[in-house]
């Protein structure tokens, strides 16, 4: 077919996840967030996005090999 959209989607979200993970690690949980207990949302969500990206990428590779 040409371009399998799962590749760019997977790549983009994996990268986005890494950016958020990095931000979360370096800036820590934001006390100004008004949530108690304070959550390091960047860290958590960064991990989620990264995993999502990897899963997408993985399914694209599996699809290609089939």
């Amino acid at each position, binding site marked *: 077919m040409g371009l399998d959209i799962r590749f760019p989607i997977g790549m983009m*979200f994996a990268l986005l996840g890494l*950016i958020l993970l990095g931000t979360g690690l370096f800036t820590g949980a934001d006390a100004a*967030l008004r*949530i108690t207990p304070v959550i390091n949302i*960047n860290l958590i969500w960064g991990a989620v996005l990264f995993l*999502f990206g990897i899963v997408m990428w993985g399914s694209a590779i599996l699809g290609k090999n089939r």
Partner: protein
Amino acid sequence: MNPSSVHLSPIDYSILGLYIAFVIGIGFALKRQMKTSADFFLSGRNIPAWVTGLAFLSANLGALELVGMAASGAKYGIATCHFYWVGAIPAMIFLAVFMMPFYYGSKARSVPEYLKLRFDERTRAFNSVSFAVMTIFASGISLNALAKLLNQLLGWDYNICLWVCSLIVLLYVLKGGLTSAIYTEVLQFFMIVLGFAPVVYLGLKDAGGWEAVKQKLAGVATQPAVYNLSDSASKTFQPDAWTSAWKPLLAGPSQNPMGIDLFAMVFGLGFVLSFGYWCTNFLVVQRAMAAKDMKAARNTPLVAAVPKMLFPALVILPGMIALALTATPGKEYHLPQAIISQARMNDAIASVRKSAVGHADTTSALKSLTSAADTSFNPAKVQALLHAAPGTPDATLAIEIQDAVVNDYDGVILSLVKRYCPTGLLGLALTALLASFMSGMAGNVTAFNTVWTYDLYQAYIAPNKSDEYYYWMGRVITVVGIVLSIGAAYFASMWTNAMDIIQLVFAFVNAPLFATFLLGMFWSRTTGTGAFIGLLAGTAASAIFHACTISAGNLPGVKGGYIHAFWTLPSDMAQNFWLASFAFIVCFVVTVALSLSTRRTKSDEELTGLVYSLTPRQTVEQAWFARPGTIGIVLLAVCVLLNYLFW
């Protein structure tokens, strides 16, 4: 610059940059696949159902939808879910099970082309011209709203926003055509869900959970004027008005914040408007028509229906959370309002004191205050202000005047983003918002360029040219379409009243459409003349209905009733839904009557594949549980369950 605007850090910009790089990159990567006009306009019809399904949903999910649903969630509560659970889902299922075989099987390249095959050039011309114009204006309205939002929130220059966003969309659509639009729409879908989900999660946590939200909204429902949700201080609803989807509706227009009755909701919105949009609007149908085979084409709306059912939690819930937070003391959150500047506040205070001393009535006090402060106010609160003014010091009066400013519902989703998103997540949420705008705009542009090239240019202006010629025309018109959208955006920003009129005309045109398609697909006796005159009659009926009715609290003019207000409806929405119902019925009746009294111009053979009764039933190659009909029933059952859960 707005003092409450947000600051983006380099991290946020890098997220934005990453997204932009990817969407443009996808466009360029697809350039190699674009060889014919069919590749450019129809994606060569070889895209899998999960992709077309998500694109189907995403094309509709423009930022106006995101912003608007949160706004409605605050304004009307859970009743907003009806747009999805009563409106969209049944329509999408109907499209998949009953209509896609005709759209896809007829080999029509667009919705207007289906009309030509089924009826004749008249109906097609009417539909393609009105659609082309509408879709450009829709694109422009979106673009204008986006640029205004970015300007307000980030202080970016309005013009730069407009041109840069348009350029990005132009680049990837020009290179990769419909395929590019569809692929980026899928990307944008995930972006929107993953970008906003954390905001909703954080909001829910902050509010104390769903039960706490319900409890707070119960308090709001009993005294809505306090939160500027009602113009009358004495208005009160049942405690579940914001959290029960059906009971307030069944209790009548005065018992629900939307001000509608059951018939208008179920028939006007649920049937006429929803089916009219989801089943006939080429913007979404184009995505289904790009699927790789009939099975994928029929599954497209079904695939889209699954996330659509769950979307209220993402788009409507934030509005309800925002309202609950406003009603929770100590949260330091208020539904967004225009903030009155210091200079104007002095004028406003003076105006109130003057009105109080002069014993002015609420209406004239309101008028004077509005011009002093350059914003709108809640009449109930203004009335209270007049009584309280004499004994109240300036500082306190200023607070109360600010409190009386009407809510800016459209600002709700952004206010939540500002409240909860630290650097990083902020970039993600804003990119998600941008993504939703782009998916809407790209959708409009690809639908426009296809309808122009095939239904207007090829049909009437330059037929019988080579395929290369039409491919070239398609690219040219993509550029033209974007430029026209920018023009429409400027028009929308400068002449808001003219824009309201234009949108009104679109509503008139859309209302009767579904009747024409329904009769065309399911009654072989429908004739070309019947369809065309019926459509015109339905459109005219919309205009007449509008001219003869008005909704409570509005003055005759753009809101209707300028011939004479024979009927006053409880709310704008009620007027909308009844107008649609009326137009549909008129179109239906006229089409049937005229079809019976005119001769058919097409034989049964010509109509095979276009009409239900003349199309051989498809041989069942699929297991019974994979058939669209079965899946449709299951989805409908889940939808009913959702309605029951939030009864």
